[in-house]
């Protein structure tokens, strides 16, 4: 609490983000240890978790007060006007401190207490077991085995303790290879396709420089190749643009020299590095946040940001990797979570939206294959929310070693049981679990399939979204159907009891017959109107908050309002949008 000087400011204005005529709501701003809260005159609450704040900016004083712009990692952007500059300054300073904690121990996850006891907490952490995941894939088997080489994190700090490697790869080969790889990340198994006996392995770039080679590394790749006996060739996909890989040689890193590796084909797929991705997203958000945006500016901005181009590149390259479970592929294998998401105050260059990109790729798949995924969009958005919320321990720390050192499993809670508890919200009502058609998805990556993910990047800009959600209605209806099935069973058994009581000896055949009478349709439809049980959430069907003011049509007519220059000040536009 030492950072908080002012806890409550009245008469604060919240500006409409897209209005060119400075429309606003007036209310009260509260600052708590974990959240910033705004309650407007209609008692509507806006909560902002401190950890979600990517940047806070104080703009130049205006006649109506001191503007404070807060950009969040979950793409919420709020623009307050605080009447007195002093208050604004206090809040600004507090938020700066609170949003950038210097120590892990100050993160919300370490104070968050969801009323779970220790065994529940432990269960939560055990929900996803990597060994179990590999078993599901059919590993270990005659080609792949568990290696204990990294048991003490001696070979590679950023890998987990348990790794799967080719059975014929000996420990000296592994150790040798790891010395030849950036940060010791030697090739390990990521995904095993049982039917085709094909494997996906993953490693970091070799420290080849211009000419260095490593026999152990060559042996290890040879072993990997042999562990995939069905395939004559092994492909090595380098996810970087070739130019980047070549440039890295000067730093003693680089890429494999084809001459030294037999039966291996190399391919560069051109996914840009984190710095390019970061600035790409930044540009995208600048464009989509422009007031009075025209269609042409939107599309030329979309193009020049390059964001969808990167998404397509990732999809093109990793078309089936996207199916791999989040826990396995991202958390256990050292995606540098803390740094990439900017939880702690550190090097801003290490912050990048790679995980956001992964979620977006999955979303694109769900758009093309609406029945192939058990989860829905809300699930993806919720995960994204918690990557930054620091409320749960899952996404803290940069690798398993660091996570163990932080004692996350004892001190924080796992997100997954909470998502599981709420799973009704995250289930896809159209999911077709019975069909095997979706074992391998073959997404179409023609450019026109890629769309701007409005529900992610404008998730807090209510006015941009459809006012009726087909998805919610179908989801509720699905739930209702389950309830109705139960009701029918109950009713049938009650009726049966009554009949038995009444007839006491009449043939059961007749009874069965009369329980399900063929009723005239006219009557049923009447009943349907008479009595609607458990109404499908009516609120969802009403047109929530659709108003012309929200949509600012008149701002598009010059005569209605003398529109002021619709520019976002550059300072504000290029703001330090981190993740």
């Amino acid at each position, binding site marked *: 609490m030492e950072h908080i000087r002012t806890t409550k400011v009245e008469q604060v204005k919240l500006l409409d983000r897209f209005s060119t005529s400075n429309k606003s709501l007036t209310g009260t701003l509260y600052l708590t240890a974990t959240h910033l809260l705004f309650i407007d005159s209609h008692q509507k609450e806006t909560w902002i978790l401190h950890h979600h704040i990517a940047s806070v900016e104080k703009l130049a004083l205006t006649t109506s007060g001191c503007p404070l712009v807060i950009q969040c990692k979950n793409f919420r952007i709020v623009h307050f006007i605080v009447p007195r500059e002093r208050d604004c300054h206090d809040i600004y300073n507090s938020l700066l401190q609170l949003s950038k904690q210097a120590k892990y121990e100050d993160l919300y996850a370490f104070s968050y207490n969801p009323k779970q006891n220790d065994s529940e907490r432990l269960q939560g952490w055990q929900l996803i077991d990597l060994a179990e995941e590999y078993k599901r894939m059919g590993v270990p088997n005659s080609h792949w085995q568990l290696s204990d080489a990294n048991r003490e994190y001696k070979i590679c700090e950023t890998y987990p303790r348990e790794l799967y490697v080719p059975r014929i790869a000996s420990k000296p080969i592994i150790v040798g290879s790891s010395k030849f790889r950036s940060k010791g990340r030697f090739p390990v198994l990521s995904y095993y396709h049982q039917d085709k006996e094909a494997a996906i392995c993953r490693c970091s770039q070799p420290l080849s420089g211009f000419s260095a080679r490593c026999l152990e590394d060559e042996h290890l790749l040879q072993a990997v190749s042999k562990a995939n006996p069905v395939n004559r060739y092994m492909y090595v996909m380098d996810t970087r643009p070739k130019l980047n890989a070549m440039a890295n040689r000067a730093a003693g890193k680089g890429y494999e020299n084809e001459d030294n590796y037999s039966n291996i084909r190399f391919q560069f797929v051109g996914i840009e590095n984190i710095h390019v991705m970061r600035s790409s997203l930044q540009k995208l958000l600048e464009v989509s946040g422009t007031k009075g945006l*025209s269609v042409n500016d939107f599309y030329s901005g979309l193009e020049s940001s390059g964001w969808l181009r990167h998404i397509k590149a990732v999809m093109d390259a990793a078309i089936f990797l996207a199916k791999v479970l989040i826990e396995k592929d991202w958390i256990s294998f050292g995606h540098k979570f803390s740094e990439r998401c900017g939880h702690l105050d550190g090097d801003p260059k290490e912050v990048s939206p790679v995980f956001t990109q992964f979620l977006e790729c999955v979303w694109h798949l769900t758009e093309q294959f609406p029945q192939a995924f058990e989860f829905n969009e809300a699930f993806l958005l919720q995960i994204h929310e918690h990557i930054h919320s620091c409320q749960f321990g899952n996404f803290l720390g940069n690798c398993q070693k660091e996570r163990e050192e932080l004692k996350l499993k004892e001190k924080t809670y796992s997100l997954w049981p909470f998502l599981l508890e709420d799973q009704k919200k995250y289930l896809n009502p159209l999911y077709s679990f019975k069909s095997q058609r979706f074992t391998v998805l073959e997404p179409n990556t*023609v450019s026109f399939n890629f769309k701007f993910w409005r529900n992610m990047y404008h998730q807090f800009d209510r006015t941009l979204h459809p006012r009726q959600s087909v998805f919610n209605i179908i989801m509720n209806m699905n739930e209702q159907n389950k309830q109705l099935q139960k009701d029918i069973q109950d009713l049938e058994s009650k009726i049966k009891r009554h009949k038995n009581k009444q007839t006491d000896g009449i043939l059961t055949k007749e009874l069965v017959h009369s329980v399900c009478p063929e009723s005239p349709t006219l009557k049923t439809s009447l*009943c349907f109107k008479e*009595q609607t049980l458990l109404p499908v959430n009516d609120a969802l069907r009403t*047109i929530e908050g659709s108003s012309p003011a929200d949509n600012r*049509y008149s701002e598009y007519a010059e005569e209605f309002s003398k529109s002021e220059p619709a520019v976002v000040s550059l300072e504000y536009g290029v703001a330090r949008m981190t993740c």
Partner: protein
Amino acid sequence: MEFAELIKTPRVDNVVLHRPFYPAVEGTLCLTGHHLILSSRQDNTEELWLLHSNIDAIDKRFVGSLGTIIIKCKDFRIIQLDIPGMEECLNIASSIEALSTLDSITLMYPFFYRPMFEVIEDGWHSFLPEQEFELYSSATSEWRLSYVNKEFAVCPSYPPIVIVPKSVDDEALRKVATFRHGGRFPVLSYYHKKNGMVIMRSGQPLTGTNGRRCKEDEKLINATLRAGKRGYIIDTRSLNVAQQARAKGGGFEQEAHYPQWRRIHKSIERYHILQESLIKFVEACNEQTHNMDRWLSKLEASNWLTHIKEILTTACLAAQCIDREGASVLIHGTEGIDSTLQVTSLAQIILEPRSRTIRGFEALTEREWLQAGHPFQQRCAQSAYCNSKQKWEAPVFLLFLDCVWQILRQFPCSFEFNEHFLIMLFEHAYASQFGTFLGNNESERCKLKLQQKTMSLWSWVNRPNELSKFTNPLFEANNLVIWPSVAPQSLQLWEGIFLRWNRTSKYLDEAYEEMVNIIEYNKELQAKVNILRRQLAELETEDGMQESP
């Protein structure tokens, strides 16, 4: 008959048909007066049955003696026919070309089509102006039907019956007609029952450079205002364009002469600009190999979504004037037959729940497009693959349908019809067996005797069998005004029209079916629960009677 002369080779064997997402099929190609038919000989099924009038353009090329004809349709589909024999191929190509560009309307298929279905309700009489007016007359007595245009003499593009203010007589209407472009004097387009405000539409006033005025015109539109109230004139042209129009005898309402009206200029494009936009847009959608940057820049350069946004914004603005400002609106551009109708009809979609039902939308199409004199024959003569560049060809109606689709996307439960209904209307506006979209206005349709000689589209659509395909399973009547978002982030590419032939929709269709199943199952369960409840209640009362002394 005439067609025989045009068909040099009526039949070719061993023709191979290539279509998107279907395996190639070999069969016999037949040309009739109105159709191109390909049937595979194996099971005698027709693989292709294409109206000549649906053909927008054809390309031919030869490799040795194997000819290939690429047929580009007005519904954006592209198919390919491989025809053995150079002579056959050339004959077929020239026949198709001739048959798809027949000059005379009376040679078109609707005049030859004999329906195979039973007509339950004759669509030609489904939406009579008198009936439409009755819907208003219960709410207001300030308006009347006028038969001043009975012989199409006052305004050739108006129907014989129009709705005008009661206080203005036919003589005044005749005078006003001489002051408005094409004789299109202001008429009622929509009456907002909630507050009595109205949308009127007309052609531009013919003020010319010397600022001509017309007292009757001023009187007519002022008659629609309540005492002390102001109205809005929405000119669908930019101020600049409107000013330029004066040089050609057109113009706009001067403040001095219309002090009770406030004029707003919007800028909705017309004619070839729209056609070129469509051509570019379809071209971009048809190219599978564009990289992301190229795709986005093509999308942008086509300007299609810009037009959508501009039209929607103007319609929303008109609706806002009516519903929120409580002011009446007069809408016009130059002629009042293109952008004007887009705006008046979309404003009604926003304001009027009835126009979001199937019948209501049909009535709207009939009233605000067909009877209001949108020249379908001219505008829909060619589509995205044409090279003719005629000024009068423009996808005005398709833009309207796209705007409706955008609103439908945003309010998916507020419309009784689904996307297929809109696609069907698009198809029939460009090529059809029905007479509904033939001709440019009521006057031409009368002369063609369409009612007697052709079948109405509505006769076919409004049969339960067809309706079931066009009904939105999520529909729940919603009596509110619906305000769509017009932000670029909210507007989408209409995949059902523009990507329809460019990618498979199998998974999306299956998901849609699953959704319908869930809804149907829900109804079934509800019905069953209700029956069981009643049964139980009966048993309980019987029990009660038995147990009671």
